[in-house]
């Protein structure tokens, strides 16, 4: 009879690692250390150690399954080596056909969220209704309360699925906004130059 699979023999958290592994297999969304700790009925620090063991075991290039830290938790995914096979069998409904307008709206919600449709429209210069509806339907953004005052507009924030689709550990993994785009001073100078050229 075959001996049972052992992750790392004689490791004190071996048993816990198996439990954590089982929980992650069943879950369809990333699980945080606290959630794993509660479900496994064990200490969070020991769960972290067990996750370390699992990351060694399920690393890229070592297994068809990869354990990754994403969207504020841990989750299994297929290895990159298996991506072509996955693409032949499965669909990517969340990101399929994402328009430029939808991704711009997504960027605004990711950086400035929770924010409302009027706020998005103010930045983009066009109504954001259809883009927001599309992102909500895909599960990339979700409602997050309303603006203050009676009849306040609905606010939106990005979801854990957004972070997972874009492979982000959290929203903090997004590049800093100050590092993106043009300098306001430079734009202002250019505008004034154009204005003076027209006036002359």
């Amino acid at each position, binding site marked *: 009879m075959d001996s049972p699979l052992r992750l790392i023999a004689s490791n004190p958290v071996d048993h816990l690692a198996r439990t954590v592994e089982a929980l992650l297999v069943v879950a*369809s969304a990333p699980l945080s250390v606290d959630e794993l700790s509660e479900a496994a009925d064990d200490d969070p620090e020991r769960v972290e150690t067990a996750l370390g063991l699992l990351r060694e075991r399920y690393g890229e290039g070592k297994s068809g399954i990869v354990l990754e830290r994403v969207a504020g938790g841990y*989750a*299994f995914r297929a290895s990159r080596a298996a991506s072509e096979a996955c693409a032949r069998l499965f669909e*990517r409904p969340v990101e399929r056909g*994402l328009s430029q307008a939808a*991704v711009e709206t997504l960027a605004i919600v990711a950086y400035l969220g929770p924010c409302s449709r009027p706020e998005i429209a103010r930045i983009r210069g066009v109504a954001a209704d259809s883009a927001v509806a599309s992102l909500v339907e895909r599960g990339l953004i979700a409602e997050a309360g309303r603006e203050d005052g009676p009849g306040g507009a609905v606010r939106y924030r990005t979801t854990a699925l957004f972070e997972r689709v874009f492979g982000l550990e959290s929203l903090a993994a997004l*590049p800093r906004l100050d590092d993106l785009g*043009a300098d306001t001073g430079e*734009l202002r100078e250019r*505008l004034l130059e154009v204005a003076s050229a027209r006036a002359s």
Partner: protein
Amino acid sequence: MAPTPVRELELDLDAFEGPFDLLLTLLLKEALEPREVDVAGIVLSFVDHLAEREEIDLEACGEFLVLISALLELKARALFPDEAAELDALEPEEAAEELARRLAEYRRMKEAAAWLFERLATERERWFRLGPAPLAPQAERRLALQDCSALAEALRGLAVPPPNVSLSHMALRFPPVSQFLDRFRALLHRRRRFDFDVEVGGLSRVEQAVAFLALLELRKSGEIALSQAAPFAPIRVSRADDERILTWTARSA
């Protein structure tokens, strides 16, 4: 090739498809939101239209500029309704600063969107399970230990027979209206007038109500006249002919 008036310029936009003048009409009638209109799309249509022609029609260009400017203003006002007054008060340099700030904000978001697009491309090889999470187990409601005698006491409280429902209203008797009709007719035969409140003073509420119905019946048939000095004041009942005599006397005087 005959020039096409700008107003008849055919548009094919996300929010609208048809001639330019119809679009303007819909906007003025507020049947279409200005913010839904892709102004750049209209400009491109016009440029395409110009490219099809061999010579530039300056008159058409001027008309187009006027119309598209008006449309831009409409759209700007719709997008920034609260800020219009604020912007009007700005000095040119401040306005440039504000515009630059907004352009920079939008450009940063465009850059962020470009970064997300790139990220999406690099993460295309990541496949993971999508779907609803399995249901969490329902919390088991655990009851505290119960004392049997307390339970019996509680049941005993519930086992008390309910109080008898009163059926007294079923026995309520309504005297016939005719009884009061006869009574009031007899009264007016003896006296020319009487106070309704005095006559029904000693009766029950039901009897008073029936007496009042009889009063209304007599008034309807024109046998009596009713008068009341003020709301809730005593109701004075008199013979109808007596009332007519009083009125005639008052007019003669």
